[in-house]
C-alpha cells in the first residue's frame, strides 16, 4: 500500500463486530455491567436529591414522594433498583474472577445466567414486597 498513497483506505470493520456476530453471553453481561454503572452514576443524583428532600422539611419531602409515585417516577426507581441489583451481583462475579475463580466458559456462562435471573428476581421481589405492603417496617 506504500506505493499508492492517494488511494482512500477502505473502511474496515473494527473489532468487536458487535453488529454482525452473535453476542456471547459473557460479552452481553460485561456491556450491561458498564451500562448499569453509567445508569447508577446518574442515579446518584436521585440519592442526593432524596437526602436533600428529607433535610428540607415536610413539603419538599412530600413533593419528592409524590414525584417518585408517578408512573414515570416508578419506572425510574425500578430502573435504579434493577441496575443496583445487576451491578451488585455481576460485581461479585467480577470479584470472583479477580480472585481467579470461575473462568471456565461453562462456569462463566452459568454465572452470567444466574446474575441476569437473580437481578430481575431481586428487583421485582423488592417491588413486589413494597406493593404487597411488606415494606415500610421502619415507620
Amino acid at each position: 500500500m506504500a506505493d499508492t498513497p492517494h488511494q482512500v483506505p477502505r473502511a474496515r470493520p473494527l473489532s468487536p463486530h458487535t453488529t454482525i456476530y452473535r453476542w456471547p453471553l459473557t460479552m452481553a453481561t460485561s456491556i450491561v455491567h458498564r451500562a448499569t454503572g453509567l445508569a447508577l452514576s446518574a442515579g446518584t443524583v436521585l440519592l442526593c436529591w432524596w437526602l436533600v428532600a428529607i433535610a428540607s422539611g415536610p413539603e419538599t419531602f412530600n413533593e419528592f414522594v409524590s414525584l417518585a409515585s408517578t408512573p414515570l417516577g416508578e419506572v425510574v426507581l425500578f430502573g435504579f433498583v434493577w441496575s443496583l441489583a445487576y451491578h451488585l451481583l455481576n460485581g461479585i462475579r467480577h470479584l470472583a474472577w479477580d480472585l481467579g475463580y470461575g473462568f471456565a466458559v461453562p462456569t462463566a456462562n452459568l454465572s452470567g445466567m444466574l446474575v441476569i435471573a437473580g437481578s430481575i428476581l431481586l428487583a421485582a421481589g423488592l417491588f413486589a414486597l413494597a406493593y404487597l405492603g411488606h415494606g415500610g417496617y421502619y415507620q
Partner: protein
Amino acid sequence: MSLETPLHKVRGMGSSHSGVIHFWRQRVTAAALIPLSIWFGISALGLVGAHEAATLSFLSQPLNAILMAAFAIILLYHMVLGLQVVVDDYVSGNAQKVFLMLVMRGFAIAAGATSIFALLRIAGPL
C-alpha cells in the same frame, strides 16, 4: 536490554503513569459496597410509604446516618473510578480526558458534600 532506569523499574509504572492503585481501589470500594448496598436495599424497603417524620427519625439514628454517609461517599468514589475507565476507553485526546475527569470529580465532590450536609441537617444539633 532494558532502557528503563532502576527507579522506573522499581516503581513498576508504565506509560499510564500509575501502577495498580486504580485497579485496587476499584476492587476495595466494590467489596465495601456489597454490604452497604444490601443495607441500603433493606432500609429503602423499610421506608416505603413512610412519612417525613419516620424517615427523618430513621436517618437521624447515628448508625443509619453513618452507614448512609459511608454508602454515599464510597458509591461516589467507586463511580469516579468506574467513569474514569469509560473515559479512558472511549475518549481520545488529553484535553478532553482532563476536562471530563474534572467534571466527573467536581460532580462527585458536589454530590458528596451536599449529601453529607443533608445528613448533618437531618441528624440535627449534636
